């Protein structure tokens, strides 16, 4: 413990002088970076719009109430589509993530080159947002729910596979060894030694990702990939604010329900 040694009364301090200075230096650099970034963003901002924003917000809020409840009739189909995009996308993702996770885990991968490839798939899938995946897929296979399902699927592979391969690396090796001692082949070792240990984690990951995907699939419609985002985009473009507020309420409700379901299911599994 750093103590400032004066003659009669030692004074307690939290850090040594050197540590104090290096922390101070790190703060200085950090603050300088932030201030510099702020200046650059501020240069690109029209401050008139920003100062005007509270008035705009009040105006928009007044136009949003009351929500146009009768529009709900046209929203059931998009909500159903949104849920389907999330669910089918998650199914697609876990079907692809499962083998990739085994290829990426250090203790089950066949060799280093395959592992590097699997890790590359995981990183690229994770780095690209589902909206960008949707943008790409809409350009390639055309707008619609199918593009949304694929976008959610591709985006979720990385997430599911990453969590899953970390779980595989943390399994108890003794159980696998015990299975091996019975004379099991490589495939049997995976099925009876590894899979039962990761199955609960796997189920938890899937439900967790499903919950995230519900949230993400609400916006895919903005680029034309199906779901409630299409209605949101259309309503905003036509300045139909009472419809916008209803859509926001519906999104809020869907997300809350999915979060509740996901929490319940995960609680039941673990």
């Amino acid at each position, binding site marked *: 413990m750093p103590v400032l040694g004066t003659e009669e009364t030692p004074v307690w301090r939290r850090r040594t002088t050197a540590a104090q200075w290096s922390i101070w230096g790190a703060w200085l650099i950090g603050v300088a970076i932030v201030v510099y*970034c702020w200046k650059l963003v501020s240069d690109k901002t029209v401050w008139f719009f*920003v100062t005007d924003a509270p008035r705009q*917000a009040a105006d928009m809020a007044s136009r949003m109430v009351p929500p146009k409840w009768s529009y709900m009739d046209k929203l059931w189909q998009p909500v159903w589509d949104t849920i389907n995009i999330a669910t089918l996308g998650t199914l697609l993702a876990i079907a692809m993530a499962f083998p990739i996770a085994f290829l990426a885990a250090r203790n089950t991968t066949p060799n280093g080159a395959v592992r590097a490839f699997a890790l590359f798939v995981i990183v690229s899938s994770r780095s690209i*947002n589902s909206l960008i995946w949707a943008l790409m897929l809409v350009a*390639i296979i055309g707008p619609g729910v199918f593009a949304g399902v694929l976008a959610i699927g591709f985006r979720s592979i990385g997430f599911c596979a990453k969590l899953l391969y970390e779980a595989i690396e943390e399994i108890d090796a003794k159980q696998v060894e015990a299975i091996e001692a019975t004379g099991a082949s490589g495939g049997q070792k995976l099925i009876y030694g590894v899979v039962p240990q990761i199955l609960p984690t796997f189920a938890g990951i899937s439900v967790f990702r499903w919950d995230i995907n519900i949230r993400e699939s609400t*916006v895919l419609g903005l680029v034309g990939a199906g779901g409630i985002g299409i209605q949101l985009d259309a309503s905003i473009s036509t300045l139909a604010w009472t419809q916008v507020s209803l859509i926001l309420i519906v999104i809020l409700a869907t997300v809350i329900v999915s979060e509740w379901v996901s929490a319940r299911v995960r609680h039941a599994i673990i």
Partner: protein
Amino acid sequence: MSETTANSYPRTWKKPPLIGNRLLRWALWFGAAIYLSVALGTMDINWGRVAEGLPRGQKFITAFFPPDFVSRWDSIVDGILESIWMTVIATVAGIALSVPVGLGAARNLASMPVYLFCRAVIALSRTFPEVILAIFAVKLFGFGPFAGFLALSIATVGFYAKLLAEDIEDMDPGQAEAIKATGAGWFQWVNYAIQPQVMPRMIGLAVYRLDINFRESAVVGIVGGGGIGATLLTAFDRYEFDSAAAILVIIIVIVMVLEYSSGFLRKWVQ
């Protein structure tokens, strides 16, 4: 004797199922089958359009070998830099806002009304995806990085404050009590008892959030919130797949660097 015991034990073994209750298991399988058939039935895939797009998809994949960094280089650099500034200040501002909210949302620190208020703030900012927040920020504050900055900051609060609050609730009460016993005031108590306990994890999460914000900054541009997203959208709309591929490669590389450095930083902090 040995004959009878050998016979009374089953000679074959079956793997126990994940879900113990047989009725529940079959109900789940049955429900899943019905849901899948209904969902796939309503999906309405235009296979003709999909088939038509496949050559374009192939063109897109070949565009990655090699991606075209040159012809749109200036706007790519502009977009990426804008994304980075936006990410940095949004992360810093979001975390600065999260600290009071997170302290207020920890049950062992705050009184009931403060706790409920802070939890409501977290729930609201967590529900809506960044893109929806960005749409409204663009409506209110005009096009440009300021809107993206606001959207990302709000989303950061929902994420960071929640995890901070949970971390504080899980802390070791012994240390907190020890600091209290020295007669520390509230701020001293937070600074010396709580902050050192949550700091290592929080620094790791800050870098993780920086990473998420950078990825999200690529999509807020699609709705006009500044950053690389606008460039990417233009590239897709013009079917300039080789430029789009270049942007995606840059995004992936930056995310990989951030991920690597976050792992490094976390090791260094702990």
